[in-house]
């Protein structure tokens, strides 16, 4: 290699090191903030489906049990646990509906220890804007129809759309989407009923950065 080349390589390496160093510095400065942001975003979502905040006093977004169950989805999904002074109050199951109109639909389903649904929300979906996106609460109230339902409220045929002989209305123009969500929720609630005790088993709980935050 010519001296020119050597010098060029040295410059590039130096620049790369400065760049990496700068980014490492920035990352160390922002890491804590980003972690809290993420944790709070999860908590904000969980709050939508959990019982009133005065009914639990742990940090459910950090009290997570990874679960691998076909009833919820074909991947390992988090189950969040809410407790009051250590006593189980409610869980939030993450469930994946594999058969949405466009793609899978990810849901969180809150279930209290009575087995009643405290709320269902969509985490992620790619359904058609204007039709299937009615499953979002800012588009329609459809998904609130699950609130207060219990698995044994209805015969198993009741956990279906009205047009399939069940007990749930469908979103206009989005039957497939609605059907997928109803089925996923019913599977999740069924799973909860069968595994309730096991869902509250302890796992290593990470340190809680939000303990001092107002709830």
């Amino acid at each position: 290699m010519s001296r020119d080349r050597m010098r060029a390589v040295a410059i590039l390496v130096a620049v790369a090191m400065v760049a990496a160093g700068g980014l490492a510095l920035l990352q160390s400065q922002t890491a804590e903030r980003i972690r809290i942001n993420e944790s709070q975003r999860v908590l904000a979502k969980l709050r939508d489906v959990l019982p009133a905040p005065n009914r639990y006093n742990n940090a459910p977004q950090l009290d997570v049990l990874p679960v691998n169950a076909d009833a919820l989805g074909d991947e390992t999904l988090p189950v969040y646990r809410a407790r009051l002074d250590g006593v189980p109050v409610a869980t939030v199951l993450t469930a994946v509906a594999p058969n949405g109109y466009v793609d899978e639909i990810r849901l969180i389903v809150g279930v209290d220890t009575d087995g009643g649904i405290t709320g269902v929300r969509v985490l992620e979906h790619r359904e058609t804007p204007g039709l299937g996106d009615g499953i979002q609460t800012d588009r329609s109230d459809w998904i609130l129809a699950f609130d207060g339902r219990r698995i044994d409220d209805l015969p198993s045929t009741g956990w279906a759309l009205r047009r399939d002989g069940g007990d749930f209305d469908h979103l206009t123009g989005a039957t497939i989407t609605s059907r997928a969500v109803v089925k996923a929720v019913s599977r999740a609630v069924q799973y909860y009923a069968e595994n309730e005790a096991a869902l509250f088993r302890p796992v290593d709980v990470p340190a809680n950065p939000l303990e001092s935050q107002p709830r």
Partner: protein
Amino acid sequence: MTAPVDSFRHGLWQANPGLVQLLGLCPLLAVSTTMINGLGLGLATLAVITATNVLVSATRHWLHQDLRLPFFVLLIATLVTGVDLIFQAWFFDLHANLGLFIPLIVTNCVILGRAEAFASKNPVLLSLADGVGHGLGFAGVLVLLGGLRELFGRGTLLHGAEQLFGPGAAGLEIVFLQSQQGLLLASLPPGAFLALALLVALRNRLTRDRRAAPARSASQTS
């Protein structure tokens, strides 16, 4: 001293990346569903293109010819990663909306293009003006496009302003039409193409009128 002003205007209007060069269309069309999304990505792009131009220009004398491109790529990737971290730390909700498109600023050819074609050959002040001009030109198109699509698709403007300006800005949202549906087409990808086409046509119309004016015809081509 008009040179920096010219560079600025060149990027903002004559060679606007979104409307004339038609560069960086992927984020332009994907993100411009609301005005705030457009503004967020526009500001991120503006920051990256300006910083890249200044740094490239400042180092242009002691950089070997062969090193230019690897250096540019390294620089742009570093800056974009930095912007991505900053968005995650301080504009978390907006970052969640813009998603993958912040890292994808790396691939915006406008940035590499200006570094190579302009900043590597011109002094810092000119390059700064060029970067700000192109950045603002791109951001402006994003905001316009986002505004148009939001207005027709949702019947609002400035929805989600609090994601960028803090909780106090939540009241900035202007609701024109209290409708759940709006014009669906505007929110969908084809609506982005149609709206962009309208903007391009509008710009062409404006420049043609000027070009038709005598004695200015030569200066418009660039």
